[in-house]
């Protein structure tokens, strides 16, 4: 089974240990706690659970181990957040105004037609605002978001992130482009 990419019904730590079907995932974890390899910073504000080798509480590992499933409950609840009846477009920014931007939109399931749409900049998440520039790509979708027992219609804009280019990345891409350019036989 470990050689398969099938999605697992449950992940490690999703449920209390006694209910978990694959306890092997805990074995090395427990061994590391016992050997003092893990770190614990019990930050109540952020739910961060990391074991600290220098922490004197590492001797209390037995107590902390049983505390872990408690943290996982928040994770399990998040699984009840899902969207349905979603329609999606990929957009390319073609113009930016003071409070809005204009984009060329292609429906993801049917790229044969396109539309032009204008969006309020306020719809962009603050984290994504620096990505707004002519030519940048974003995904726009509308659909129904169910979060636990609440359901609402939602419009989502998420800008595409492919990562910062390092000098090595830039050189590699430039080399590829140069090779491609050299391989073209121009008609004389």
């Amino acid at each position, binding site marked *: 089974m470990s050689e398969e990419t099938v999605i697992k019904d449950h992940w490690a*730590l999703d449920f209390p240990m006694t209910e978990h079907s694959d306890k092997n995932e805990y074995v090395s974890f427990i061994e590391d706690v016992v050997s003092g390899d893990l770190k614990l910073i019990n930050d109540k504000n952020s739910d961060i659970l990391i074991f600290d080798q220098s922490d004197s509480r590492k001797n209390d590992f037995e107590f902390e181990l049983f505390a872990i499933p408690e943290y996982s409950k928040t994770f399990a609840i998040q699984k009840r957040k899902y969207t349905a009846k979603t329609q999606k477009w990929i957009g390319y920014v073609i113009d930016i105004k003071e409070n809005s931007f204009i984009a060329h939109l292609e429906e993801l399931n049917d790229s044969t037609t396109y539309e032009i749409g204008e969006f309020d900049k306020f719809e962009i998440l603050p984290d994504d605002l620096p990505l707004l520039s002519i030519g940048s790509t974003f995904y726009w979708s509308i659909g129904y978001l169910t979060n636990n027992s609440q359901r609402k219609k939602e419009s989502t804009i998420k800008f595409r*992130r492919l990562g910062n280019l390092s000098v090595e990345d830039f050189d590699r891409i430039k080399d590829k482009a140069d090779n491609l350019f050299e391989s073209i036989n121009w008609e004389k």
Partner: protein
Amino acid sequence: MLLEKRQIYNFSLVALGDFNPKIIQPFWLANKGLIGEKEAEDANIELIHSELVKYSLTWVDIQIQQNRFELKSSQEPYFESIRDLFIGIFSKLQETPMKSFGINHIMHFSARDEQEMFNIGNNLAPLNNWDMLNNPRVLNLEIVENKRSDGFDGKIRVKIQPSDLLIGSNMGFSISINDHYSFQEKNQTTDNVLKLISSQWKSSFNSAQEIINKLEEKLFRL
């Protein structure tokens, strides 16, 4: 159309290989420009350990073990962003050896009533073959296409089972499609894997839809 009755669409990208879980933490992703800084700050971290890293952003759950890397979400607006995140991570970690990856589509549906639920099971695995049992029911069924028809190495697996997400109803079932690609050459580096994911992305969604559409005719046959 069965697809229109879909209630939940879970999606995941799974890669098998040799990974260093501790590297791929939220602030590393932010540092590489793959997520925003605020997203990294707000990440819900469950565990950071050399053998297992597990956290979630608002739109994706991330679990990394030394031999398994997995991104999953039940929010359709972000499926493309999951692909971009996967490609972004392994463009930065180009020497990561991988031996296979899978694109998983898990769709949850509601049957109209108990009779329809029974018919679905009965159509999949005729229950008159099980007359030695009293009131038999189908729990789950898994079928594999052992040799892919598109020429790639790998398998397509389809699993039908009761839904564990449609709570409050016993009439929910899910269809899971594992679009699995494996590599002849063990420990493939990321470049070829990323090219394959990009090129197969759309066809994976199309073939998942086609499987569902074709299954519909059989599932709801009276």
